[in-house]
């Protein structure tokens, strides 16, 4: 800063005049004054900058704390929403369980053709309501980061064909050509989430049928090697009305259908594509669309899977047949705890005609005393019950078994709470499985079969 300037080279050595000397002196004085003025300006500019930086930092601090408050508020609101949705799901599922269960049971009784048609509408509407409810719950779980993707070995072709079976009739009714083809790699077993595959593929095919009035729907299922893993690619191509650029923007946004008129014309929650895309993303993939208005649309879903060798197991038989076979070998007694009269009736109807004894009690403490008198072969346990809930009753039974060195009675949870965290909780407390409400006959029966097949046949000698 105070570095001394290089001495100017001596131009000539002749004596300098007085006036020249004074002029030089004045010039130096002015230079020094100038420097001092500039220094002061610089100082003032620096001060202003520092002040500005400080006020900026203050503003940032304020903004940060505002944002933090907003975040906390938003998180609280989101948590409240999740709790509300979980509660509502329980409240809606219980009566829906009653409606669907009774409708299914009614289906097994002699009906006139007209009654059967009416019942078909009841069942169809009930299942539609159930799927809407599932959509809303799915999205809220995805948004809350509580959605669990399963890793299960399954036969790719079989799962895809089960989806095909669901839609081929509908396509036929609309006079559409509906074809599913498989790429060379898309054979055999893979590890992934078959239910999410069904959900995504089902959603894309359902949309394609919905928005195509003539022509065809082609589905191509292929498996690509992608880096160090494999990617399942589902391409669903239709010859429908297509999607405008404007509609594409809104296509994947939840609760927004590309055009409000669509919900009037075609129905639906507008959640399907948004859920499917999120599911693909959860499985390290993506859902994309290419389309031109009036020229059909092509949706491409891709996500990670792991090809595996086909497991050497026999195809599972129909659970009802299997249960019947098990019961022929040995009749069994089932104890059910369910406080809701409608659900009691549903259980009775679903298990009617099977060679088993069904005792129903309506709270946890009644289960405990019934179990004390004579342990059944299986307990179906509702979770939310008065007096003593299902979890408390299960815990009491498990500790009594250990204390008294008794055979372990299989316990299956019956619950409208189907969130994964609940399943884990049930398992931790000693339950052997769970059946979500409203239950389908097939689900209930296969859970019972599974429990019977895995139940210890003799009292556990060491009481482990």
């Amino acid at each position: 800063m105070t570095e001394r300037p290089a001495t100017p080279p001596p131009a000539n050595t002749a004596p300098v005049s007085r006036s020249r000397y004074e002029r030089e002196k004045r010039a130096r004085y002015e230079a020094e004054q100038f420097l001092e003025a500039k220094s002061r300006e610089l100082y003032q500019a620096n001060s202003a900058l520092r002040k500005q930086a400080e006020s900026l930092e203050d503003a940032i601090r304020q903004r940060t704390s505002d944002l933090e408050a907003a975040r906390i508020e938003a998180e609280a609101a989101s948590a409240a929403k999740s709790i509300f949705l979980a509660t509502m799901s329980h409240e809606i599922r219980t009566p829906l369980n009653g409606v669907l269960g009774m409708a299914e049971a009614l289906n097994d009784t002699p009906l006139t053709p007209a009654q059967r048609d009416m019942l078909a509408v009841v069942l169809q509407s009930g299942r539609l309501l159930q799927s809407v409810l599932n959509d809303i719950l799915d999205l809220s779980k995805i948004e809350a980061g509580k959605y669990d993707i399963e890793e299960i070995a399954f036969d790719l072709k079989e799962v895809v064909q089960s989806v095909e079976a669901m839609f081929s009739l509908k396509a036929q009714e609309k006079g559409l050509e509906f074809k599913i083809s498989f790429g060379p790699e898309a054979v055999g077993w893979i590890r992934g989430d078959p239910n999410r595959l069904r959900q995504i593929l089902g959603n894309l095919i359902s949309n394609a049928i919905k928005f195509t009035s003539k022509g065809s729907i082609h589905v191509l299922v292929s498996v690509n090697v992608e880096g160090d893993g494999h990617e399942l690619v589902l391409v669903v191509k239709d010859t429908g009305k297509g999607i405008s650029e404007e509609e594409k923007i809104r296509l994947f946004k939840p609760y927004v259908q590309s055009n409000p008129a669509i919900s009037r014309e075609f129905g639906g929650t507008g959640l399907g594509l948004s859920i499917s895309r999120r599911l693909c993303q959860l499985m390290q993939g993506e859902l994309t669309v290419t389309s031109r208005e009036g020229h059909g649309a092509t949706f491409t879903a891709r996500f990670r899977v792991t090809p595996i060798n086909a497991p050497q197991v026999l195809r599972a038989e129909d659970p009802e047949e299997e249960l019947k076979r098990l019961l022929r070998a040995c009749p069994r007694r089932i104890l059910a705890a369910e406080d809701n009269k409608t659900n009691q009736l549903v259980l009775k109807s679903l298990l009617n005609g099977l060679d088993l004894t069904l005792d129903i009690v309506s709270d946890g403490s009644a289960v405990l005393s019934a179990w004390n008198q004579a342990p059944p072969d299986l307990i179906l346990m509702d979770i939310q019950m008065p007096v003593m809930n299902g979890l408390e009753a299960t815990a009491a039974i498990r500790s009594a078994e250990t204390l008294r060195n008794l055979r372990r009675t299989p316990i299956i949870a019956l619950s409208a709470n189907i969130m994964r965290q609940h399943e884990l909780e049930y398992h931790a407390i000693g339950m052997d499985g769970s059946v979500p409400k409203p239950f389908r006959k097939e689900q209930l029966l296969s859970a019972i079969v599974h429990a019977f097949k895995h139940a210890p046949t003799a009292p556990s000698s060491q009481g482990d």
Partner: protein
Amino acid sequence: MGMGLLHRTPPTLQRMGTLVKGIVFVELIRMAETAIGEDAVDQILDQCNLSTDGAYSTVGNYPCSELMQLVEALSNHTGTPQQELQRLFGKWMHEHFVHSYPAFFVDKPDALAMLAAIEDEVHVEVRKLYPDAELPRFETERMGSDALRLTYRSPRPLTDFCQGLVEGCVDHFGQPAEIRRESLPNSEEHACAFTVNLRG
């Protein structure tokens, strides 16, 4: 730090003792020129063998040892004792301040107010322009309405110069005062206290 670096370091930054603002050198030479003429001053500067060759700018900083060398040489040349020369120079310097920085003086009712403002007003401004300036410390204490005790502390042996400044300040405000000086023995720095009592 090797010799190479030292060699490249400009003389003004070499810590030969401490540094003094260039304005002090410029004004000392100006006072000397007024007193003994330019030729005599040139001669003295040539004889002193100064690292700066006697070229000083008001905005630079230069070794205090050179200032002392100049004071000694001027003292020898004029026969004025060094302490007296420093005191006279202090008064000269004060006049220069009044001339160059009148803003500091206009709102001060008397010399005591001016002296009391050195640390918190004048030096604050100096540091704005010269953040590297090594300024002495001036502590002041009011001793009633017409008296003030000023303590000067500096690593530089310029207590007599300081006395000249105090006297110059009293002269400037015109109100006569008695100035008592008391030295404060201190091994680490040069320190003394001035008690200024206004009269009349």
